[in-house]
């Protein structure tokens, strides 16, 4: 399966994505510079984490205007799989591919640590290899990861089952104490209505191997690969 990872000036998890996709999961990966418009025929586009354009103005606000994002937008609208991780999630929200916004952490501090995530929906191409209710240990590393959406938007999210992962404790309980950034209802990741675009703050790109703290990120990549294999049949 072929993944294309977008690279903006200031992206810094592009290497993590490349490593986990190619070296850990054994898939093909292309790195696509932000000034390019050719995504190189991907089966899935990854918008990686980092500080695109230095987080100037607002996280993700400038990246959405880059040439490559026009192509990502078209790709997504045709039903192509798009996953945005951390800053990538912020960019997808800014670009209107996902609803809501990521605002400053409640602590007002950057926070880097492993957190636990409850997989609430397995009926997406990004979580299909997970068990419902499975707890994934994934790292977060962000200063602006508190998910926010207005009440109308929240109703729609819930009605369409778009909340895919929520922060939880080790045992899978979704509690205020396990919310690392003040996200509404512990939301860690959501998908769009058509379920082909997924954004999450935790990093499945930095959790592909036990030696770096967790291999649970593999479940996300395996899901994508599985859905692709299924679609191909």
């Amino acid at each position: 399966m072929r993944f294309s990872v977008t690279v903006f000036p200031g992206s810094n998890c592009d290497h993590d994505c490349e490593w986990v996709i190619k070296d850990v999961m054994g898939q093909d990966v292309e790195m696509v510079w932000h000034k390019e418009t050719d995504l190189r025929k991907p089966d899935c586009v990854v918008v990686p984490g980092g500080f695109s354009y230095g987080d100037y103005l607002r996280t993700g606000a400038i990246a959405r205007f880059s040439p490559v994002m026009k192509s990502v937008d078209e790709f997504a609208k045709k039903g192509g799989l798009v996953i945005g991780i951390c800053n990538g999630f912020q960019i997808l929200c800014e670009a209107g591919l996902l609803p809501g916004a990521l605002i400053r952490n409640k602590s007002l501090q950057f926070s880097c640590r492993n957190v636990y995530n409850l997989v609430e929906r397995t009926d997406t191409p990004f979580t299909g290899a997970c068990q419902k209710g499975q707890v994934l240990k994934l790292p977060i590393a962000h200063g602006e990861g508190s998910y926010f959406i207005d009440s109308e938007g929240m109703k729609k999210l819930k009605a369409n089952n778009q909340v895919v992962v929520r922060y939880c404790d080790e045992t899978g309980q979704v509690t205020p104490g396990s919310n690392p950034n003040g996200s509404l209802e512990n939301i860690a990741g959501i998908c769009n209505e058509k379920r082909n675009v997924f954004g999450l703050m935790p990093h499945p790109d930095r959790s592909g191997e036990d030696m770096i703290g967790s291999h649970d990120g593999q479940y996300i990549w395996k899901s994508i690969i599985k859905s692709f294999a299924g679609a191909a049949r």
Partner: protein
Amino acid sequence: MTTAEIEITPKIIKEHGLKPDEYDRICTILGRKPNLTELGVYSVMWSEHCGYKHSRALLKTLPTKGPTVLQGPGENAGIMDIGEGWAVAFKVESHNHPSAIEPYQGAATGVGGILRDIFTMGSRPIASLNSLRFGPLTDPKVKRLFTGVVRGIADYGNCMGIPTVAGEVLFDESYSENCLVNAMSVGLVRHEQIIRGRATGVNNPVIYIGATTGRDGIHGATFASAEITDESTEKRSAVQVADPFMEKLLMEATLELIHGELLVGIQDMGAAGLTCSTCEMASRGGAGIEIDVAKVPKREKGMTPYEILLSESQERMLLVAKPGCEQKVHDILAKWDLHAATIGFVTDTGRMVVKENGKVVVDVPAESLTEAPVYHPAKSEPAILKKHREFDESTVPVAPDHQAVLMKLLVDPTLASKRWVYHQYDHMVRSNTLIRPGSDAAVIRVKGTKLGLAMTIDGIGSYCALDPYEGAKIVVAESARNIACSGAQPIGMTDCLNFGSPEKPEVFYYLDRAIAGIGDACRAFNIPITGGNVSLYNENPTGPIDPSPIVGMMGLFQDVETRVTQWFKNDGDQVYLLGEIGNTIGGSRYLQVIHGKKTGACPRLDLKVELALHKVLIQAAGQKLLQSAHDCSDGGFAIALAECCFTGATHEAKAKGVKSSLPGKGRVDGRLFGETQSRAIVSCKPSDAEKLESLAKQLGVPFEKLGVVGGDKLIIGDAIDVPVSTAGDLFFTAIEKMMS
């Protein structure tokens, strides 16, 4: 009036921090009087920061060579071979004074500066570390400084995408008005991609890249601006402003240029900016450089050559391109949307010539700038050292409630967990961090190989104030011990020497003895020093800071699977103390926190005994005999044992209890909380106990079987019996509570 026309008066010379005989020396070198711009150029290059006037003679005594040293001191960073065609570049640098004035920008630009030193050598930065010193954390002003410094480091490193993996923080009165911010960076490079800051090849183009030049950071020792030009009446700032996004682009562009083999040499513009990079590159290459400041990209109008040459605007580099590669350089910079300007060329005159629109404004021998005068200041032993040595420990009562002492030490911000700090640092980006903050040393893998790097940065409480020679030995020993506890072989180090004014004989005594201690320890452990930094004139209104040598140590794993962490793993594992328990309390955190006394003879350190301990730790790890290993230092045996129980939480491991004896003889507080050196607490599977014991015997390291891992309590003899969860909560939340 232009700068060239201003007459150099004794007042102007003094304001530039130059002594009359230094001015005379400049006149002799030039065979004429310097103009004002030339005076400015000499003053920054001959400052203590760039010229090491007071420390150079002592630094020359340090061991800097070894078979794996590819680059020693004198370049932007030291480099060591680690095998398989890979090398590691690393260096520590101070940014104390800027951080004391403006903590956020000061600390951020400190990180930016050291990162540039690393990628300038062709290496990609893979990790950062830092060592911080502040006054007491109960002081609101210190809280502001601490918050700003940590945020500055975090924002810069996080944006750059370079993990900040280890560090240390100490709080003490001695740093109340003069905090210390020492930043270290580590990079990886293929041997063939190493590049140096050298200008060679007559007529090769000299190219300026990166951010524009502004008036920020112009040498604080310069005039009020009105005296220089009529136009530039703005007050100058001595603190630079950080732009990590610019630096990220600069790093990627620089590495692309170097790896594309387009360059002859490259150097970052840090302290003394364009002046330093120009004359150092010319001097190292045995060449000359001619530049025209009119071609330098500027962010302000009306800047004089003086200002352009002395600006310390951040995120700039100077490079010399190979013949015919100039256009390719410009193309790559355009890709990254960065400024690039060819501002001059290499000559064979040995001179640094600066023009402004073709008119010569500086013409001096490049090498003379890099050869500041060397001083041998007077030294005398401070009377207080004798008092410390002769302090009678028996006059200190044994605190009656050992458990209460333990609780108090666990929340001492110097000993407590620095989780509040390192959670703000992205320590996982690049997915190489195998041991994260919270163990004795951080461990980073080298992808595509079995190799691993262990790294740590350490100073030590007040030992150097009590005994600079012994204290400095301990700093080196402890950081090497931290590396050994992780299972790696210490291979090299970098140091940052933070002291008061060298012109005070008592301060110079400390510097002299500390450097002697560092040198002796490095020779005994066979650890070369590949570079570093000296920060002098760190003074409070009440006197100098405690002498603070900081050591950044690099360790190597041939097989990173042999790494060891500090916390207990399994119920039933055997726990050992390697080394002697001792009972001295001199210089200990216990004596300072519980009894309010910063005195006593600091612990003695026998270098042979210490080295033997390292060997046991490294060999035992290599044979996979150890489940855990933890340095037993600040706070003593009880604190170290407590940390073995609960610090697994930093890596989502469950806390473990232990039932341990309290070995040794003599005062109980000394055995529990004293800081006797050359000790480590290790645990192993019962089936490996015999092998571990025979290894220790074979290498002549005394050991004590302490007990067994298990339960949910920390029990030490009949002195301490406390739930691990209680102790752990105190330890982890102490700083968070003080900061909220």
